[in-house]
């Protein structure tokens, strides 16, 4: 069984410690062998066990970055068709065993569903305005070539998609979640460190915490939304422990 895992590091928002600690967390919480590849524009400081691909030649979409933001993730669906495949964002903290999830036989590419939000009251209420999103692409797995259709679909309609959607997650939500095209992680795996109630605590029994802040700071004016490097207490201690 072959498991391929990918992450992206481009620009200067996150340093190499994000990649190295993510890799360390996966070594601790995945009990089967895997390859770990970072697609990056700057491999300086990465652990030598981490494979790299050149980010500059990885994104084939000729659009500004604010169109379908992080669309380059979809290229992986066409790039990697191993037994099991996964991408994971840098701004997550893995703290429980995820072997069961990353080795599942998945019929559809499987994304995070924002279980921490009320689907009806928050998301569907705003659906018609085009302002909703209940999908998160920070932790995604697919089996063999069962995600390639999503890459192909996107490339076929890329002009319309790029015009309409500013983020990958919103595109996935409006175009594919509504059609039942996506697999969704069940509740109990991923939570949001900055959104779940109470915030900033490790959610018992869950495996992965999301530390994304950009949407929160823009949309909800939550001033205490924290990135991993800004967190303290248990999160900081655990994250730094993955250096070892």
């Amino acid at each position, binding site marked *: 069984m072959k498991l391929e895992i990918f992450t992206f590091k481009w620009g200067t928002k996150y340093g190499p410690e994000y990649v190295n600690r993510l890799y360390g967390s996966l070594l601790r919480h995945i009990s089967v062998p895997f390859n770990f590849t970072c697609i990056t524009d700057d491999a300086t400081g990465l652990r030598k066990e981490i494979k790299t691909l050149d980010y500059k030649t990885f994104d084939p979409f000729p659009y500004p970055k604010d169109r379908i933001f992080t669309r380059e993730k979809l290229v992986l669906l066409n790039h990697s068709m191993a037994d099991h495949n996964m991408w994971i964002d840098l701004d997550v903290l893995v703290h429980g065993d995820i072997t069961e999830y990353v080795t599942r036989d998945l019929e559809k590419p499987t994304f995070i569903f924002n279980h921490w939000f009320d689907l009806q009251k928050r998301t569907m209420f*705003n659906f018609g*305005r085009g302002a*909703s999103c209940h999908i998160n692409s920070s932790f995604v797995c697919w089996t063999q070539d069962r995600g390639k259709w999503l890459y192909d679909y996107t490339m076929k309609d890329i002009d*319309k998609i790029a015009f309409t959607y500013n983020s990958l997650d919103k595109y996935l939500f409006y175009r594919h979640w509504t059609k039942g095209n996506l697999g969704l992680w069940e509740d109990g795996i991923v939570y949001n460190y900055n959104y779940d109630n109470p915030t900033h605590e490790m959610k018992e029994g869950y495996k992965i915490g999301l530390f994304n802040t950009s949407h929160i700071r823009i*949309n909800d004016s939550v001033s205490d939304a924290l990135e991993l490097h800004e967190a303290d207490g248990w999160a900081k201690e655990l994250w730094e422990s993955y250096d070892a």
Partner: protein
Amino acid sequence: MMREDHRIVFDWLMESGWEEVSLVATGRISDRFYSIKSLGINHHCYDMDPAIVRNDYTLCDVIFDPITLSKNIINFNAQKMYPIGKVHKGEFIIIGSADKHPGDCNIVTSCQQLIDQNKIHTVMRTIEIPNYSIVWGCND
């Protein structure tokens, strides 16, 4: 009372002589639009919001889904979508807003923008009112 932009569109619809029309991306519209059959105009509505539950609606995205519209089309929310005239052909009345609401991907600031985006070659009417541009014309 009907919104000013919708009132203008309704007046144009009454002038149009159309016998059928597709009402697209309606969101919430006045009941007067739903009663145009009594005025001799058949209509069908298209919107992607599942909160709208009516028999005269098809739940879809007219840009991405394989939908055949009437030759006469009213698009109520051009600011939220890819230009409809690049996907469908016919006679259009199109409303676009410059309000910059969340979810708006196509801020519309002029009638000329709507004409250019939708490849309107024959323009019947245009009007610009605060925050809204409205165009009536053909691209087929």
